[in-house]
């Protein structure tokens, strides 16, 4: 990395992983610039009335002074009374779109004298640096790591992108109206899985960031930024922010015994109730930071001499998803919603040793009908007796 910031470094000892430092907004600009030398720097910015993740090169692109007002089926940006840069929760994007892209060419094939040959697609040429990763999103990345790297067959493209990524996390100072990370034990404090984590400290006369170091690479980068050691007051301010965010969760989900509850409720009458509202549009799966399902499309050019296989995000809410010759296994909306929530909150635990939900609330916010995963889970829990009956008998 270039060393243009070295001259303004303060005289403190080199940062270590245990160190807590404080940097200014200007240093955040220096951080972006330093990362840009080696990485494609991605961070939150305002576009089309939402805060999305895009390439950024300048601090001014970050959503300073904006907050997001979220509820079931509702998302609005509003002006804040301060200039907080990270004073929002999460938008429709997640970092999944970079590590597990919505469209990815897996390989290309070409006809030749022996029939045809296949060449794997070239990997992503640039490494990613993520700015502003929330605790729930760190957990979502860790969950997708288990899916794509932890299985007997690793996704080599994902693994390469993931290993190269530099992560600057942010502790949430605002809980969104649909947030429930406290229930899922995935936040609001970022505890690991980052190179650096920022806590935005705003006051009458200050706009600083407390920085905790999560890796040697993070320590090295911090060392090249102007910084000072954090005071006890700075550390106390961070703790107060996290405690306040934890207390303001917009939603809650009872997770005790949720796996057994959902796995024993395939015939619950609530599935028909939710299906009467669900459009099976798949929005929840597209905004979910852990939903990993994909389909593949095989294309050939007009000559028929070259072909490729493209992988695309897919949704368990489509009829096609479960199609086998003769028809789809999950024809009804109730069976598709049941599949999604049972997978997310229960089967995931059997498959990957963790819940598939991080409590980010995106599926609630971005559902056009405002269907609420916490409300549906609570409805199953409130009336488990109906699980024994129901109209879906075997044979």
């Amino acid at each position, binding site marked *: 990395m270039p060393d243009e910031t070295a001259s303004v470094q303060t005289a403190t000892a080199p940062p270590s992983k245990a160190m807590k430092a404080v940097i200014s907004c200007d240093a955040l600009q220096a951080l972006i610039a330093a990362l840009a030398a080696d990485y494609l720097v991605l961070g939150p910015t305002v576009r089309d009335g939402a805060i999305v993740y895009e390439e950024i090169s300048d601090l001014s692109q970050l959503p300073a002074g904006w907050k997001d007002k979220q509820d079931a089926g509702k998302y609005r940006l509003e002006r804040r009374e301060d200039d907080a840069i990270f004073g929002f929760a999460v938008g429709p994007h997640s970092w999944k779109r970079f590590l597990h892209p919505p469209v990815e060419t897996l390989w290309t*094939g070409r006809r030749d004298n022996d029939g045809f040959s296949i060449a794997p697609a070239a990997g992503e040429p640039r490494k990613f640096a993520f700015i502003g990763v929330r605790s729930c999103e760190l957990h979502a990345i860790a969950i997708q790591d288990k899916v794509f790297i932890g299985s*007997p*067959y690793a996704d*080599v493209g994902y693994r390469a992108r993931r290993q190269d990524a530099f992560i600057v996390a942010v502790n949430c100072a605002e809980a969104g109206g649909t947030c429930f990370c406290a229930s899922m034990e995935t936040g609001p404090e970022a505890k690991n899985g980052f190179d650096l984590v920022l806590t935005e400290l705003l006051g009458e006369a200050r706009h600083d960031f407390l920085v905790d170091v999560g890796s040697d690479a993070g320590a090295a980068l911090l060392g090249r930024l102007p910084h000072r050691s954090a005071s006890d007051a700075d550390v106390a301010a961070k703790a107060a922010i996290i405690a306040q965010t934890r207390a303001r969760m917009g939603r809650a989900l009872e997770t005790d015994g949720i796996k057994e509850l959902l796995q024993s409720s395939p015939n619950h009458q609530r599935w028909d109730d939710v299906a009467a509202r669900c459009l099976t549009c798949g929005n929840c799966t597209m905004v979910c930071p852990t939903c990993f399902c994909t389909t593949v499309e*095989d294309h050939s050019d007009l000559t028929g001499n070259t072909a490729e296989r493209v992988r695309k995000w897919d949704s368990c809410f489509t009829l096609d998803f479960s199609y086998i*010759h003769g028809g789809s296994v999950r024809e009804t909306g109730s069976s598709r919603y049941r599949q999604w929530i049972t997978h997310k909150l229960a089967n995931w635990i059997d498959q990957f040793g963790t819940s598939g939900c991080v409590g980010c609330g995106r599926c609630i916010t971005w559902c056009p009908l405002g269907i609420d995963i916490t409300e549906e889970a609570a409805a199953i829990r409130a009336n488990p007796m109906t699980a024994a009956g129901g109209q*879906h008998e075997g044979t």
Partner: protein
Amino acid sequence: MFTESAEMARMPPAASGDPFVPRIYCVDRIRRELSDTVTLEITPSQGPRPRYAPGQFNMLYAFGVGEVAISISGDCADDRTFVHTVRDVGAASRAITSLDVGAAIGVRGPFGTAWPVTDAEGSDIVIVAGGLGLAPLRPAIYHVLANRSRYGRIAILFGTRHPQDMLYRDELAAWRRNLDISVEVTVDHADRDWRGNVGVVPALIARASFDPHDTVALVCGPEIMMRFAVNALRDAGVAPDHIHLSMERNMKCAIGLCGHCQFGPQFVCKDGPVMRFDRIASLFAVREI
């Protein structure tokens, strides 16, 4: 979850590297089985054919058209070819059934769990197949016949819709002439010339000769047929953990990453396709799971 026995262990393909990238094979022989069904023998263009176990499957790719999961239906003792019986039911399978000898075909695999033919040694074997479900069972049949002395009684119970769409007709007749095994065939709809059983295949189970307390049942066919076959096996006294089914679900990746083949917490591609009934009994009773 399904790894305690040697056969149930997941067997990664011999070729390392990117599991998304097919290897190129060449179609060596084609046998037309039925009007819409062919059996292909394919060999790798380069290198050895990976090892496989009875019950495993490959992803077969027709250039520019698509990929489809097809069980391996050959004899494991042959280490040169993969044998696949393919029915034309969609764009990819149509392209594959239309290939000529000498054509190239893409292959990923083998994938999935296997029939427990080694664990079943010493027991009676009941093989229950419906229609094309005989194809994934044929490697198990070859294995138990080649190692006949290691097993007790062997019953092959096969059901098909009509006499004219009977898969592996010549082989069934040959197995039937073997006095050391019992082969029963039934058809849903008989024609004028049919002299055999009429009805669904689970009805053959009650009449088959086996020791229910020491029997391993291998079942493959349409899900509704397997449901009734399991009921008949249970009625006959076969324990749920001695019944093995080969499941079918939509598959895109075959390596547990695409999510399509989920059957409750299981991925049919890697926790299956061969699954022990007691482990999926609760799911098996649920519609649209």
